[in-house]
C-alpha cells in the first residue's frame, strides 16, 4: 500500500482554450455555462521588468499569469514560495527557430534564443518577476507532466512541511514539429498547496497511486482538450472543486500508473 499525500489547495490558476481564468472557468467546469473552445488568450506579464517582458515567450507569460491567479486567490503575494514547474516541452516556437537556424548555412543563434531554450526558462523568469529565491523544481514527463508535477509538489508539502506552488504549462510547436507533437494551443494550470488547513483553504486533496482508468469528460470538447494538452489532464480535479462536491477522481499520469485524488471541500 502506498501512502496518501495530503495537502490543502489555497489558490487555483487556469488559462487555456476557452478558459480565460479560474474565476470564469470554474463556472464552465461546474456546468453553469457551456464549454466552448476558443483560442487561448494570455494576459500581459505586468510583473516582469520591461527588458524581460520584451523577450518573454508564451510559456513564460502563461506560467506567470496562471501562478498569479493562484497566488492572489490565496492572498500570498510577496511570499517566498517553493515552486514546481512541469512542462511537457519548453518554448515550442523558440525550439523551432533554433533547429531551423542550425539546419541553415548561418548557425549564429542569438543569445536570447539560446537562454530561452532551456527547459527552466519560465522558472527563471518567474523567480525574477516574483523575486522568489526559494527552490524550484523544473520537471518534464511528456504526457504525464501534470501528474509528475503534482506528485513532486505534494512531496514538498508533506515531507518538507511547506507551501508549494505547482505550475503546469504547455505551448504548441509550429510545423513541422506540430505534426509530430500536435499540441493545439497554450494551456496552463497552477495550484497553490499548503500542508495545513487555513483561512484561505479551498479544498483538501489526498493523492495516492492507482491502476484504475483515468476519468474521461462526457463533454466531447472538454475531453478533446484533456487528451490534447498534458496540463489539461488536471482539469477533472478542477471540475470537482468547481462543482463543490466531495468526491474522488482518477487523474492520468504514466501509461501504467495513475493518481487517485480524493477531494473534500473546506
Amino acid at each position: 500500500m502506498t501512502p496518501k499525500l495530503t495537502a490543502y489547495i489555497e489558490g487555483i490558476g487556469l488559462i487555456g482554450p476557452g478558459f480565460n481564468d479560474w474565476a470564469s472557468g470554474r463556472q464552465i467546469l461546474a456546468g453553469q455555462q457551456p464549454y466552448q473552445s476558443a483560442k487561448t488568450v494570455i494576459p500581459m506579464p505586468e510583473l516582469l521588468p520591461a527588458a524581460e517582458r520584451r523577450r518573454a515567450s508564451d510559456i513564460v507569460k502563461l506560467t506567470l499569469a496562471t501562478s498569479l491567479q493562484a497566488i492572489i486567490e490565496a492572498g500570498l503575494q510577496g511570499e517566498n514560495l517553493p515552486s514546481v514547474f512541469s512542462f511537457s516541452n519548453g518554448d515550442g516556437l523558440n525550439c523551432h527557430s533554433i533547429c531551423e537556424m542550425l539546419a541553415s548555412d548561418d548557425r549564429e543563434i542569438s543569445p536570447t534564443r539560446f537562454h530561452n531554450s532551456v527547459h527552466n526558462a519560465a522558472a527563471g523568469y518567474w523567480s525574477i518577476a516574483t523575486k522568489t529565491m526559494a527552490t524550484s523544481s523544473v520537471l518534464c514527463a511528456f504526457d504525464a507532466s501534470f501528474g509528475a508535477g503534482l506528485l513532486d509538489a505534494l512531496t514538498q508539502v508533506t515531507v518538507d512541511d511547506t507551501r508549494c506552488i505547482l505550475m503546469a504549462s504547455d505551448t504548441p510547436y509550429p510545423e513541422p514539429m506540430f505534426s509530430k507533437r500536435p499540441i493545439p494551443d497554450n494551456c496552463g494550470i497552477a495550484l497553490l498547496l499548503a500542508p495545513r488547513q487555513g483561512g484561505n483553504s479551498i479544498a483538501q486533496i489526498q493523492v495516492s497511486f492507482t491502476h484504475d482508468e483515468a476519468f474521461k469528460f462526457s463533454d466531447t470538447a472538454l475531453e478533446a482538450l484533456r487528451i490534447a494538452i498534458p496540463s489539461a489532464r488536471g482539469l477533472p480535479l478542477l471540475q470537482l472543486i468547481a462543482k463543490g462536491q466531495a468526491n474522488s477522481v482518477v487523474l492520468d499520469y504514466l501509461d501504467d500508473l495513475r493518481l487517485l485524488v480524493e477531494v473534500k471541500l473546506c
Partner: protein
Amino acid sequence: MQQTLDALLQARQALKPCDFETVDLPTFIGEVEGLNDVNMRDDMADYDCRNNRLAQLGLEQDGFNDAVNAAAAKYGQDRIGVFLGTSTAGILETELAFRNRDKLTGTLPEDFIYSKTQNTYSVADFTRHYFKLAGPAAVVSSACSSSAKVFSVARRMIEAGLIDAAVVGGVDTLCLTTLYGFNSLGLLSTQACRPYDIARDGISIGEAAAFALLERPSHAMDDSAVLLLGIGESSDAYHMSSPHPDGLGAKMAMQQALQSASMTPTDIDYINLHGTATPSNDAAEAKAVTAVFTQAVPCSSSKGATGHTLGAAGAVEAVICALALQHGFIPSGLNTTEVDAELKLDYRLENQLQPLKRVMSNSFGFGGTNCSLIFGLAGTKGDAG
C-alpha cells in the same frame, strides 16, 4: 568507474579540439568515444538517439543494471522511481531531422520519433522501460543543476513513502544547440577550460551519463556505502544567464545543505565546485564559498577533466565525490596553471591522498537555479560533527 578513478588519480583530462559532427567552432569538447557504434537493445530501438545510447552505455557499466534489478526484485518494480537530469535530451536528433525535411512539404522524416528522442522526458522514459520499472518517474531539467536536483526529488519521494529506491542520475550529450548557443553568449573557451585560473576564459562542453541507486540507509550497509547527508536549493531571482555577482543564491544553497545535514562549515573536508571556468561564474561562486566557509576548505572543479557536461554535471560530480570519499583523495583541478588569487580559495592543483569524511558538491545553472549536495561515507556516520 575504474577508468574515471584512474583518470582522476593520474590527473588525466579528456578534452580535445572540437571535431563534433559538422560543428565548426574554435573550442574544445569532452566527447564519449564510440557512441555511434552503440546498438540499442532490440526492444528499445525506438529510443535510438545519441542521448539514449549514452544512457544505455552508462546503465550497463559497473554492474549498475544488476543493482537496479536486485532492488526491483527486493522492493517491487512499482516501488522504484526514476528521476534523471538532462538539459537537451535527444535534441540532436531533431537538429539532424531539420536538415532532412521534405523538400516539397517541409515535413520531418517519418522515422523521427519525437516522444522517445527529442522530448526532455525521453531519457527517464527509456530508463524506466529498460528496467521494466513501474513506479513514478520524471526528468528534472533546470539546465546545469538538473542532475544535482534529482537527488532532492528522489529524497522527498522516498521520505514520503511513495517508493523504496530511486534510479537517479544525469545524461547529456553533445549537440549543436549547446555548442552554438554557448558560443553566441561568448562563453566557450578556445582551449581546454581552466576553472579558477587567472586567465580562465570560458567553458568546454562535455557529455556524460552518471547514475546512482538511492535507497534508505540501513544497518546492513557496507562501510564504503555513500550517504546523501544534505541538500540545499535556491534560486537567484537575478538574471537568466548570469549568476548573482555576489553568489547570493549559491550561498543560500550551501548554507541550507549544511543546515539540512546538521553540520557546520568545518565539517566539510572538500568542495567539488561548480567551477565552469567562465570569469563571472567562478568569481560569483568563490564569493559565495568564502562567505559560507570562513576557514579555507580544499576545493577543485572537475570540469577541467570532463568539460561541462551541463545537465549531467551534478550526477557526474556526485560520482566523483563518491570516488574521492571511498578512495580517500582530494582530486586536483586540471588545466589550471595559475589560480586566481583574487578568488581566495584553497584551490588544489595537485591530488592529495587523504581520508575524507564529508564532501560538498555545487551545481548552478541558467535561470539562477542552485543546488548543493553533501555526501559522506556510511563507515564514518557515527562521528558526524
